[in-house]
Structures are given as structure tokens and as C-alpha cells.
């Protein structure tokens, strides 16, 4: 027994680089050999899906891209899934970006979904307004008059020359608002400056780390549903019935979580054994 406890204490002070190596292996292996673990949508993902389902063909959705390459694996799959759902329902999509690199994320998602998959027409079915710096000031501007913030879209077309911009002057003209957010400025600012003052239905997709910060707004009904990180994206993909990048990463995610939980339990056992021994002697 003592030998076993010795081993536990020794293993507790294992060089952290071995832990990194184990994590790398458990993430890589399921990517090569998928297990196909089931994905069950949570209530909050279901709420986002239901909110989009309520939209009708021709309704207007404002989607804001507030993330970049550093958080792409978490947010991009849900942005793509949401666009698929919106285009499937023939909803008109208006895209803004509060992050400079959000514009490139939006271009990539639109090329994949709007152009290649659904053959949508730019300016009639979707428009990429582009990026404007100014964080909440930009949202405030969009709430009062879109044309004060955007006189041209991301391609340099004057807003008044874009067919789907006719009659769209402010946030209140939209039927649905979605913020794909990885931090500031993002979901919280959209709630504070757009959704709450105008009453437009808003949902969000955030990084996992933001979920705790945004959840109070979901609980209070200020936001209708939230997609949290890669699992949120995978759940949404399962809801719309189109598996994508989120779903393919979920095996690796689940196995990695199990291993990390195992490490935490083992580390605690090792800590308590060592503490008991030091008290004894």
C-alpha cells in the first residue's frame, strides 16, 4: 500500500510537459479515428434554433461578426451553421463587424454558405456592410441611423444602391439580431445598446469562456438562447441536420474533457496523500 501511495505522490509531481503530451494525443487521436459520440442539444441552443425558426422568408436578420482567427475554432462553426439556417429559410442577412478581422471571417463564411451552397445573390439576399471601429458607439449609431455609420458596404457600394437596403434605416427595422462574439465589443454591448432599447429579438453565439458572463442576460430573457463554444456549434449543427466543423471536433473535445477531469481527480488525491504524510511526520 505504501508503495502505491509513494507512486501516487511521485506521479503528482510529474513534469507538466508529459501532461501536455497526453492532452495533445487525446485531442489528435479522435480527429484521425472519430468515435461518433452522440450530441444532444441543450435548452439554450434549442432556443436559438426556435428563434430562427420563427422567422419567415423575406424577414431581415442582422448578424454581427465579432471574432477573429484566434477564436475561429469556437465561433466560426456556429456562424456557418446559423447562416445555413437563415439562408435555408430565405431570410435576408445583413452582416456587420465590430472586430477588424471579423470582416474576413464573414467573407469566408459567406463564400462557403451563401455563394457555394445556396447560390444567394449579393445585395439582394445578403450584404456585408463591413467593419467599423468604435465599439458601442457603432452599435449606438446603427440603432439611430445605419447610414451614419455605413455609407458604403465592404465592397464600396453606396448603401442606397443596394436593393435589400431599401427601407432599412436602423436596428429596429430588423426582425432578428445575432451576435457571434468572442469578447469586447460583442454580445454584452449589443444587449445594452441595441436589443434592450429596441426590443428586437436577439440571440448569441459566444466563446466558452464568455458563457458565464452572458448567461444572466439569457436567464432574464434579454437574449433568446446562447450557443456556447464548439459544443454549442455542434448542437446547432445537429439541430439543422447539417454536420460541420463543430460536430467533427466534438469527439476530441469530449475525450480531452474526460482526461482533464481524470488529471484533476488524480492531482487532488496526490495532494491529499502528500499532505497527510507531511502532517504525520
Amino acid at each position, binding site marked *: 500500500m505504501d508503495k502505491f501511495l509513494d507512486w501516487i505522490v511521485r506521479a503528482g509531481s510529474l513534469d507538466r510537459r508529459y501532461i501536455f503530451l497526453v492532452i495533445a494525443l487525446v485531442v489528435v487521436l479522435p480527429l484521425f479515428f472519430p468515435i461518433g459520440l452522440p450530441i444532444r442539444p441543450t435548452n439554450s441552443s434549442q432556443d436559438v434554433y426556435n428563434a430562427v425558426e420563427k422567422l419567415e422568408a423575406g424577414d431581415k436578420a442582422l448578424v454581427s461578426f465579432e471574432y477573429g482567427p484566434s477564436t475561429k475554432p469556437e465561433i466560426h462553426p456556429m456562424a456557418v451553421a446559423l447562416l445555413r439556417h437563415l439562408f435555408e429559410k430565405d431570410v435576408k442577412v445583413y452582416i456587420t463587424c465590430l472586430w*477588424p478581422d471579423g470582416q474576413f471571417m464573414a467573407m469566408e463564411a459567406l463564400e462557403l454558405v451563401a455563394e457555394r451552397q445556396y447560390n444567394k445573390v449579393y445585395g439582394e439576399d445578403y450584404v456585408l456592410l463591413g467593419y467599423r471601429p468604435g465599439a458601442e458607439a457603432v452599435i449606438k449609431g446603427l440603432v439611430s441611423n445605419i447610414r451614419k455609420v455605413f455609407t458604403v458596404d465592404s465592397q464600396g457600394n453606396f448603401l442606397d444602391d443596394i436593393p435589400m437596403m431599401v427601407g432599412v434605416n436602423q436596428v429596429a427595422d430588423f426582425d432578428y439580431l445575432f451576435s457571434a462574439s468572442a469578447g469586447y465589443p460583442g454580445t454584452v454591448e449589443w444587449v445594452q445598446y441595441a436589443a434592450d432599447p429596441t426590443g428586437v429579438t436577439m440571440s448569441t453565439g459566444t466563446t466558452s469562456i464568455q458563457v458565464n458572463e452572458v448567461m444572466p442576460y439569457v436567464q432574464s430573457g434579454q437574449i433568446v438562447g446562447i450557443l456556447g463554444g464548439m*459544443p454549442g456549434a455542434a448542437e446547432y449543427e445537429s439541430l439543422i441536420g447539417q454536420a460541420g466543423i463543430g460536430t467533427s471536433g466534438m469527439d476530441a473535445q469530449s475525450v480531452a474533457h474526460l482526461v482533464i477531469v481524470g488529471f484533476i481527480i488524480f492531482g487532488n488525491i496526490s495532494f491529499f496523500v502528500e499532505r497527510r504524510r507531511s502532517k504525520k511526520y
Partner: protein
Amino acid sequence: MNGSEIFGAWIAVFLTLGIFSYLYKDNPFYKISEHVFVGVSAGYWMAMAFWTQVQPNLFGRLWPTPEGEISGFLMRAWYGIYDFFGFILPSVFPDGGIDKGHGHDPHFMYILPFALGIMMLLSVSSKLSWLARLGIAYTVGMAAGLRAYAFLNSNVLGQIKGSAVSFVDMPFFSLTGVSVFNNLIILVGTITGLLYFYFSKEHSGTFGKVTRVGIYFLMISFGASFGFAVMGRISLLIGRFTDLITYGGPTYSYASIWLILLMIVLLAVWTFKGDKKVAS
């Protein structure tokens, strides 16, 4: 697949592996990747802000393309300043004004933010740095005013409204949905959590027990945050590994495989040389 895309993939793989190499120990690959990331991010952000905001929305409003001939002494003088700028920086101030759909008359109101912006840049001068305070004061004051209402409306009133729910037609218990039990937990957690941050009374006796409950709620909240943080980091790791696997294929000339091997060899040589130096 064209050459620039393959070259881009090689760069992406090198930078990813460079950052990962820190997990072994601090090394030149990590330093290169870190400095490139910081430099490129700052440069990219600045270029985007300038070409999407300062040039079209500030200069474009101050010197829009005029309709017809410029008339009047003041207007000619105003566009004379523009021509001078255009002589120095023709790409920013093109001939004949900036046409960004703001109309054809200059918005002189925008001289104020232009001046405040210049004042903020003067912080680099030891004699004129005091002027930067005006720009900063304006920004802070404007942001405080803008945020005060939004916070009060969404974070105070909205949250109170959301918490004040009716128990009628609500199940007593539900594991995931809305229920009386879950709302009671939110109520107890909110009150005890707030009381924990009340420091005008000593945390002892009954009050101490109540605040201890608040600590437990805070700890659960921190635990949930930690869990979500781990989940997020693993997702990002999956994203990088997915890209490395993609770039390890024949389409990208096996970029990941070659660079992993090269980096391992160079790190081994570097470590070996370092050990020898320490030993001598």
C-alpha cells in the same frame, strides 16, 4: 492550389509550432512567433482603423468631393489645405476630394474630433503632452455618459425585471428549465453573494454564516468559469490541430510534417549547445 496559398500554409504551420514550442521551454522559435504576432496584429489593427474610419469617415467628411467648382475664399482655402495634404500623401487625399457618399458639403463639425485626435498624438512630446489630457478627458467623459444609461437599463433594471418572476404555472423542480426551485437558488445566490461584498459589518455570527453561503456560490461560479475556460482552450487546440493535419497533406507539400521534424532537430541542437555552455 497556388503558390501563395502553399506559402501561407507553411508560415501558419511555422508560427503555430513556434508558439506550441513554448510548452517545451522558452526558445527562439517562440520568440520569433510571439514578436511577429504582436507586430502584425498592431499593424493590421492600425491599418484597418485608418482605412475604414479615419480616411473615409473623418477626412471624407471634412473634404468630400465637391459638386462643381469650388467657390468662395474660405472654401478655396479649405480645399487648399487638402491639396497640401494631397501633395504629401496622395493615396490618403486623392485629387478632387474623398467620395464616400457623405454628400458634397464639408462637415466642419468634424474638425473637433480631428483636433482631439491630434492632441492625443501629442502625448509623445514632453512640452505639449498636456494637450493629450483634453482628448483623453473627452473620451472618458463620453464613454462614461454612454455607458451609464446602458448599464442601468440592461444590467440593473433588466436583471431585476428578469429575476422578479411569477411562480404561478411554474413547476416546482426542473433540472434544466425554469422552476420554482431554480429561481429560489438564484435568489439565495444573488443575496448571499452581494452580502459577501458588504464590508461595513464584520463577517461573524449569523451574518458570517450567510456570507459563507455567498462564498460557496462564488466558488461554484468560479468553478464553472474554469470549466468553460478549459473547454474553450481545448476547442482552440482542436482548431489548430485540424489545420496542422490539413497542412500536413500532399496539397500543402507536407508542411506540418517537414516543419515538425525541422523544429525538433533544431530545438535538440539548441538545447544540447545550451547544456554544453552551462557545463563549461
